[in-house]
């Protein structure tokens, strides 16, 4: 329901491998809200997204994450996805030998089964697929190709958004989805993302640059530094960061701690 917290992150500490990266991160996102996380390299943006989706190699050492009030961290990666967590990867992997359309239908049906819906047969799925492909302006031939194999950077990102459109997650994390996109691809990707905005669905947009936030306008902007959120504000904070860089906030945070 709108305005209930969809995801609550409390005092999250996490390691990437053996290295502590997140050091007490707090964040709450209500249903329907779009939040952006900005921050310099190494501040923990990618670690946060990987921890949320349960990637092996990342360990939570302290704190908790509640998704719709339930402990997210005890679920395995596939269950999180089925429950409605989605990460649009920064570097989508290429998987030779697995056709995109077959993969997509397998994923859609895994999630439908989890939600108590009937599996889609090949024909029904194709209808759905075509409709979603239009939104991200993807040509048909990309569907019979192997997952991301030989795709350009922009095509891979569009493929990520296509997966998001098909899986209809409740909580979408976009990890630097704008990186490596030209202006047309950025527009296509943003349109896809914006078409997903709804009072029930929340998003966390992780980005280096303000540019994406011109298209996907956030409700809140947070600055991540050394594994903690050091400043939060409205969408104007992104503009301020673009102008002044991160140095001043990090200095400020450094003085406070």
């Amino acid at each position: 329901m709108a305005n209930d917290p969809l995801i609550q992150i409390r005092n999250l500490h996490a390691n990437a491998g053996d290295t502590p990266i997140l050091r007490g991160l707090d964040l709450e996102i209500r249903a329907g809200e779009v939040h952006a996380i900005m921050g310099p390299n190494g501040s923990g943006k990618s670690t946060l997204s990987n921890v949320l989706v349960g990637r092996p190699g990342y360990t939570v050492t302290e704190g908790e994450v509640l998704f719709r009030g339930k402990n997210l961290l005890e679920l395995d990666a596939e269950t999180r996805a089925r429950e409605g967590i989605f990460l649009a990867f920064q570097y989508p992997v290429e998987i030779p030998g697995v056709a995109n359309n077959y993969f997509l239908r397998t994923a859609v049906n895994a999630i439908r089964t989890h939600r108590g819906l009937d599996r889609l047969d090949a024909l029904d799925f194709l209808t759905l697929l075509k409709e979603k492909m239009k939104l991200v302006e993807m040509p048909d031939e990309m569907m019979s190709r192997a997952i991301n194999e030989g795709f350009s950077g922009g095509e891979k990102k569009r493929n990520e958004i296509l997966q998001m459109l098909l899986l209809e997650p409740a909580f979408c994390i976009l990890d630097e989805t704008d990186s490596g996109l030209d202006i047309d691809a950025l527009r296509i990707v943003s349109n896809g993302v914006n078409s997903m905005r709804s009072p029930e669905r929340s998003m966390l947009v992780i980005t280096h640059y303000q540019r994406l936030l011109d298209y996907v306008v956030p409700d809140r902007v947070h600055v991540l530094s050394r594994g903690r959120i050091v400043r939060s504000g409205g969408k104007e904070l992104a503009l301020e960061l673009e102008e002044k860089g991160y140095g001043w906030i990090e200095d400020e945070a450094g003085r406070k701690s």
Partner: protein
Amino acid sequence: MSAAVETLDRLRAGIAPIGPAWLVRQREEAWSAFVEAGLPTRRLEAWKSTNLAPLAALDFARITTASSIAPGIGSGAKTATAIPGVRIDRLAGVLQREPERLAGRLGRLADPKRGALVALSTALLEDGVVIELAPGARCEAPIRIRFAVPPAADGSASASFPRLLVLAGEDSAATLFVEFDSPADAAGFTDHVAELVLAPRARVALVQLQAESAPRVHFSSLHAEIDRSARLDSHVFTLADGLVRSELDLRLIAPGAEATLDGFFLVRGAGHADHFTTVEHAAPHCTSSQEYRGVMGDRGKGVFRGRVVVRPDAQKTNASQSNPNLLLSEQAAIDTRPQLEIYADDVRASHGSTIGQLDADALFFLRARGIGAAEARVLLTRAFARTIVDGVGDPELRAEVGHRIDRALAALEPTLAADRADGDDDHDASEGPPAGDRA
């Protein structure tokens, strides 16, 4: 004489001598060669990695010979419809009615001295299939041959010695599908020998599917001679939970001869699958390429031995060989030994083998999209097999082999519900239609 040899001799005594005098003599010679060599042991170089103890332990005293043989053309394995120049016959019938057709042909390539089990197969030969393609004959639809072992009503073991002889005349072309199947309760031993003679410019595509279940022991040995500008495309698919040894022995005897030897083996349970190929380049300007891909799960073990021999006058030979492998579990193992023996100096030859595991990033990506870990592993393993499956030229066979591999992959993942094993029908949507169930 070992106990196994003694009991096999008893089995032999029970088989009525068939065919003409030359065959009777050939079989006696083969028997002598077998007795002299005995069952192969790991002391032999060629059997170093495969232990035939499960075969030696079979109680051959109680064994009966049994196999059901169904040759046909096209899907559904209908009896052969008349195609000009294409003859498909049961071997036993030919030996009874017109044995002269086979004189100097049957048993010419499968030299008993090449191996004890090859000798044994000839010694105990009863039936099989003879395919003869007249010069210029073309058979578009695949010729299907199914060697099936019937279930044993009383649980006793059986032995079968199915034979295949293919004589492809000049400029002929055909696709063959040879399938071995047995139910899980059909203990015993299958000892199969195939001989293929390709006359100049003949083209034969051969797809073998070995799907006999443990505890049955499967041995097959294919011998081919490939003449000028002829081409053999061999695909071997082994889906094993028992003991399997598959040998390919090819000779390229005149310039322009070509052979592709591809294979995929999937070993599960306590299975052991040993693929041993020999390609002899006996003439200049011949090409051979081979790629065998192995997947070992559970406690399965794979063996790949690939010998390429380039004779001194086989200049301008082009030979490649590769054996990538996936190990899916801690207990799985692969023993891979590519082997080049080059006696000519102007030769292009390459070989390589790799051993790896499923890509962790790809696995996570699929799981992050809601696909369960077991299903994700199946998807990725199927993708690994796909290069080989896609090499099967006939779309119907390609789809059918793909489905059989899917079923075997599902068996590797007990957590997958049975209805998911062969429920999905469009993973090969970009290819031909899915295969229907065969009769």
